[in-house]
């Protein structure tokens, strides 16, 4: 709908309220939504760090050691902690929204939303377990 909204013509003075720049601070659901959108930056940050990690591993032990020492600085630790918190928030909010975005049917019957959400959390737990097992040396 590219054309401007059409209202009844020739009406003299409707009142149109202006929307505050800070509308997202007015209510918790709006703030939560804004934080969820901002958390995408943290997700991107985590991906970039992982890519740098892979590059350091490929370049050999010296590059990997240098990369590790950079990650041990207070700023890097603080950034990683904030990013981790946001990534968790991102994951939880999207998992909780999954049932709204996706309708799963089994034999023609709709699977309850709670089951869809629970399946996401279960997959998360299983994958985290596999990664932990792998990191601890199998």
């Amino acid at each position, binding site marked *: 709908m590219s054309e401007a909204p059409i209202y009844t013509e020739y009406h*003299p003075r*409707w*009142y149109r309220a202006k929307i505050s720049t800070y*509308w997202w601070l007015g209510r918790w659901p709006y703030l939560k939504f804004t934080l969820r959108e901002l958390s995408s930056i943290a997700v991107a940050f985590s991906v970039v760090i992982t890519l740098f990690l892979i590059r350091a591993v490929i370049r050999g032990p010296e590059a990997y050691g240098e990369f590790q020492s950079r990650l041990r600085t207070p700023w890097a630790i603080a950034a990683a902690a904030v990013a981790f918190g946001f990534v968790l928030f991102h994951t939880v909010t999207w998992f909780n929204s999954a049932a*709204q975005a996706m309708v799963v049917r089994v034999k023609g019957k709709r699977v309850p939303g709670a089951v869809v959400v629970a399946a996401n959390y279960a997959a998360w737990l299983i994958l985290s377990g596999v990664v932990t097992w792998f990191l601890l040396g199998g």
Partner: protein
Amino acid sequence: MAETIVLEVSRYCPERDTEPTFQSFDVPFRKDWVVLDGLNYIKDKLDGSLSYRWSCRMGVCGSCGMMVDGEPKLTCATFLSDYVPGPVRVEPLRYFPVVRDLVIELTDFMRKLKHVKPWIVREEEKLLSEGEYLQTPDELDAYKQFSMCINCMLCYSACPVYGLDPHFVGPAAIALAQRYNMDSRDEGSRQRLDILSEHEGIWACTFVGECSTVCPENVDPAGAIQRYKLTAALDAVKSLLTPWGAK
């Protein structure tokens, strides 16, 4: 228990005011009174010039939607007892132009609703002699939730995307489009997808989710939009992979 409760009602007279102001009214507090009863009391006993819309008084017509203490509500289903000791602030639905007092201008919504073709589209109508278009209970169940929309526009007032971008088609119109897409008798989903795949359609929605929270009929417009996005994305991928089969 208090005998009265204060309603702070937004007043706007287009011939006189540059912006709305609040006027306080003492109305009787009764346990079974809803906000609309308070407004009707004001209209009947205190100030006959108060303007607002209402009709059925039973949550069916969708006329009496207003902001009650900052939340979009059907005033016929919002009890004063939930706001004791008050005051209760009553304003016109947010993001819509105000015509007078609590009356909003809804032409924009009506135009958008018509734009998404919320009716059964058939490529070819059956003859009357061939009988009805039959549906199984499962086919009815597929769209029934979305058919419960009463066009009250509370979802638009809860949607910051609509507030920031008035071109956005909006939650109720998209949910109603989805209602007909999912109807087994309908053959117009391609036409609707072309309309709603535009920027101001489904892709403008950022999934705040408040439209579904405030919906008095549990229609879940946010869910309808996300599912529509999935359909549109799959359709786009399908067109890319099989260009010979597109449209």
